């Protein structure tokens, strides 16, 4: 069930990025798509009734405690992937916003139907 909602959010972001005419709205649509993918990635590692994957001194005492921890903790690898993906989307968002500002300075509008010097 949560996976379908994630996919719905992705489709919503894609609709927004494709249909809207204002440049900033297109950028927001791309952001929503990225959030949806990050959410999907985090949900992949979830385990029902799991504990946070932070190890403590008490888990290191015996092998049985360590095995118990490993089998009941949430998968930490997707969390590392999401961290990297968030950093990448931050960089690309900064680039897109600065492009929007520069285009506004040159053309005077945010409307993409009026920014059509290159055609053919």
């Amino acid at each position, binding site marked *: 069930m949560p996976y379908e909602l994630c996919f719905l959010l992705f489709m919503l972001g894609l609709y927004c990025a494709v249909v809207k005419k204002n440049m900033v709205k297109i950028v927001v649509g791309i952001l929503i798509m990225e959030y949806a993918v990050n959410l999907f990635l985090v949900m992949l590692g979830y385990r029902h009734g799991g504990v946070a994957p*932070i*190890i*403590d*001194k008490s888990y*290191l005492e015996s092998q049985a405690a360590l095995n118990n921890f490993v089998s009941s903790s949430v998968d930490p690898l997707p969390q590392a992937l999401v*961290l990297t993906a968030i*950093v990448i989307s931050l960089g690309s968002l*900064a680039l897109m*916003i*600065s492009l929007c*500002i*520069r285009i*506004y*300075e040159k053309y*005077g509008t945010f409307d993409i139907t009026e920014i059509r010097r290159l055609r053919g």
Partner: protein
Amino acid sequence: MEQEQQNSGGVQKEEISNGAKGMTIIVKTISSWVKVLIFLFGIYIVLFGHLTPGGGFAGGVILASSYVLLMLAFGREFVEKDLPLVIVSKLDCLGALLFALIAISGFVFGGTFFFNFLHQKYHLGESLRLISAGTIPLSNIAIGLKVGASLFLVIFLLSTFRRDASSNK
């Protein structure tokens, strides 16, 4: 008052802190105290990155946001005098070069890139304490420095654009 001193042209620091630019004086006083706490919190998140959640990137964002708070409360020129852009951009490059240096020293001392030579070869400290896990805290510091400087530079430069100004990047 101190406005008679340093009467060279432009905006002086004392004028700003006495209400010439930026927000009201309540905001300015509180934010100048809170900024130090935020900066300290950012350093804590960076340093304890191998024990608690956080690490280089999250700590760097908090470091940058402390200066952004200062920029919002006091105005852009004040922050530019406080922390010139040239120094921030050099700090940015320094952070990345430090990270590359850690990777290469893993190669020099251990045999492969990013090899955690402090932990696996020299066994510095016991596990789950502050000084442990080898080169990971050093990488966290380098990344925190770089991310903080980069994000501050990005937000500062984005706020400089204006419609009719001759902005050059």
